[in-house]
């Protein structure tokens, strides 16, 4: 493997790691907000639904790479 290729790989690894950590932090923050809404609001079903969908999409997109299914580069 050339030095240039190693540098590219290192950069890609750093980028992917950063992306994953940001996604995890967002998920954790959403979970805590979700918890406080649920304990503070009388009927929390409707206010919580967007959180569930958002968290689900973040996992599907960032961690499970669902979009790669219809892209050619994977």
């Amino acid at each position, binding site marked *: 493997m050339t030095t240039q290729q190693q540098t590219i790989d290192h950069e890609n690894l750093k980028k992917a790691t950063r992306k994953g950590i940001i996604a995890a932090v967002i998920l954790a923050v959403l979970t805590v907000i979700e918890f406080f809404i649920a304990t503070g609001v009388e009927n929390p079903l409707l206010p919580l639904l967007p959180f569930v969908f958002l968290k689900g999409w973040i996992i599907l997109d960032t961690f499970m790479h669902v979009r790669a299914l219809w892209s050619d580069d*994977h």
Partner: protein
Amino acid sequence: MTTLDTTPEETTAESHGEYHQDMSFQPKANRIGLWLFIVSEMFLFGAFLSARWFSTGTLKPEELNQALALLLTIVLLVSSISAYLAETSIKYDHRRNFILFTVFTIVMGLIFMGGVSIEIKEALHAYPPETPYGTSYFMLIGLHAFHVITGLLALTMVLILGLKGHYGSKQYWGVEGVVKYWHFVDLAWVIIYPTLYLF
């Protein structure tokens, strides 16, 4: 060179080459297969989740251990990011990090299972399986726990194979498949957690 000019050994080598060429398309087929399996699992979880809505609506007992459930959700999220990092590491041939993150994911999974067993112990007294909420609770928690256990077994297998040097940047489908399954387990919990504890 025609087929008549080749020795049996050369013909075998050629057909092996073709075989390997065909196999290069395999990861895409594997991914589609795994996604089909995951979608079928989503239907299974969907049926159990709708049973909870149908039988008890949004009613939930006061005795639910909210703090423990929140903690378990965070533990599972942490295990998901470490599984992601394990997959990313092997994709770029960082074998040491791959092993470390896989071990960490397994440990987080075991902590999650420990927490679930405490929850189940409490639930058996507070809302036993004979009650309408208890039925949904034990069905969903049990189904999810079963998936966590199978995920842990698969992760352990990947770890053992990884320690033997089986994966690398050019061949990491085994890791990718298991990690994707683990993320699905997390995804299922993201829906089960509010359904049982928050709504």
